[in-house]
């Protein structure tokens, strides 16, 4: 009853990409009027919008830290972003992604510059076609920059994986359901630090090491695109 889906034909992936290609991507900064900072990040059919609110007073107050800002992240999926409608409100998966997103971003932010405040990062996935947490982190890093939050660097996020025994970059579409391994990372380029790492699927130690290096190379490409988007935004502002 189940049809066999071939994910790789003639050394090409089902959407025509080579093994180490990213999907086409698009990044825009400053897309929301009423947020302190915002960004749009699209990779293939995955679309994330991030908005930053803050630094602002912490509510409830007992959560505030005397010596630094707290970072709060909320990852959400629009109900219509998936093939089956996803119920509004966070489920356990969204809770976990919010948490790993926060930890992915924290290392680059000068939280100590804004004691007793909260910096709130909200990520909305408008369209979900694999690697949504990566797209969300990429948008969030840009939105933080747009909000003028002092940062040591951006964070760039990308997935790699194994499909039909082949190591590939940026899992998408059918590869997501039928692939063997998914491996999203977030990367702090200046320090060469991996700030998010999750792996689902079986790999030999040797395969794993190849995937790890491939994912880092992908994140580095995304980093360049993020910087480009930021430059465009500020160039536009100067020209006003």
């Amino acid at each position, binding site marked *: 009853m189940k049809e066999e889906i071939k994910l790789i034909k003639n050394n090409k992936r089902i959407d025509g990409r080579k093994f180490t290609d990213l999907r086409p991507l698009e990044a825009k900064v400053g897309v929301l009027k*009423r947020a302190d900072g915002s960004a749009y990040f699209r990779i293939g059919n995955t*679309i994330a919008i991030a908005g930053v609110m803050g630094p602002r007073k912490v509510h409830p107050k007992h959560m505030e830290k005397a010596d630094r800002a707290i970072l709060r992240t909320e990852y959400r999926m629009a109900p219509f*972003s998936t093939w089956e409608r996803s119920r509004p409100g966070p489920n356990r998966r969204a809770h976990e992604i919010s948490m790993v997103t926060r930890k992915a971003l924290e290392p680059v932010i000068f939280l100590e510059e804004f004691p007793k405040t909260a910096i709130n990062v909200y990520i909305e996935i408008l369209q979900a076609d694999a690697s949504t947490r990566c797209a969300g982190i990429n948008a969030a890093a840009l939105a933080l920059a747009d909000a003028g939050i002092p940062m040591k660097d951006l964070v760039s996020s990308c997935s790699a994986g194994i499909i039909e025994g082949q190591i590939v970059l940026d899992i998408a579409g059918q590869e997501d359901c039928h692939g063997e391994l998914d491996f999203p990372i977030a990367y702090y380029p200046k320090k060469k630090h991996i700030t998010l790492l999750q792996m689902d699927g079986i790999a030999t130690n040797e395969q794993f090491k190849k995937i790890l290096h491939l994912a880092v190379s992908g994140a580095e490409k995304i980093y360049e695109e993020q910087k480009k988007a930021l430059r465009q935004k500020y160039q536009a502002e100067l020209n006003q």
Partner: protein
Amino acid sequence: MILFDSISAKEQSSFAIRKVIEMIEIDANLIKAMLRNGKRIDNRKSDEYREISIKPEIVQQAEGSAEVRLGNTHVVAGIKMSIGTPYSDSIDKGVMSVSAEFVPFASPEFDSGPPSEESIELARVVDRAIRESKMVAFEKLCIKENEHVWMVNIDIDILSDDGNLIDAASLAAAAALMTAKMPKLEMINDKPVASKEERADRIPLTGIAVTTTFVKIGNVIVADPGLTEISAMDARLSIGTLDGKLCSMQKGGSVGLTVEEIEQMADMALEKGDELRKELEKLVLN
């Protein structure tokens, strides 16, 4: 202030200034004073809408979708359809449900949490304009009487609230309905199943309902209130119309309206509603 090598000090300062300007609060009294002299804060005429942009089919995963910008108000509507059972008091009709959610970055005032009073009202007003106008031919969304009908879920994502969410959301919902394609119906073991990725017919519509919203500020009535006008308003009236008829109303605000004011708004709604419908039809003909 961002410590990013390619951003100069000058850039940083222009950035900071922009933020300060944004923070200056526009005084409700100023708005009222200007209105007494027949002026709106952004120079619009009293019945003039802000610039409207409507982009349908922006989410592939959704059966229907549309992004609407009304000035800086920004919403996305998405439609997902599935097969369910009819209500026991309308066994031969499809079922519709409308929800609206503020994405927390839509407004600095917003705090994450359970659905707010405002988003509940928004969803219900959009729902009623569609339902009461009978614009969707729900009787054609019956698959088998008393057993299987199409469920139409309309979700409104509020991305940026710069006032008059009701009209923006109702435009987005209408545009999504007009351009949606229903999942292909498959029969598996004699049970109807909605295909996950294949799409077929359009949703059967009998017309296009839109909502037009007015606020009263002092003695003046204006259409399509922006955020600052809403902060100064006394009362609000949202009116759904379809083909020259009124189909739904909802009053807001903590001051009353006279019978005459309501009648005036009804007259204006019929006129402006036709204009908005034309915008939407342009979209479909494209």
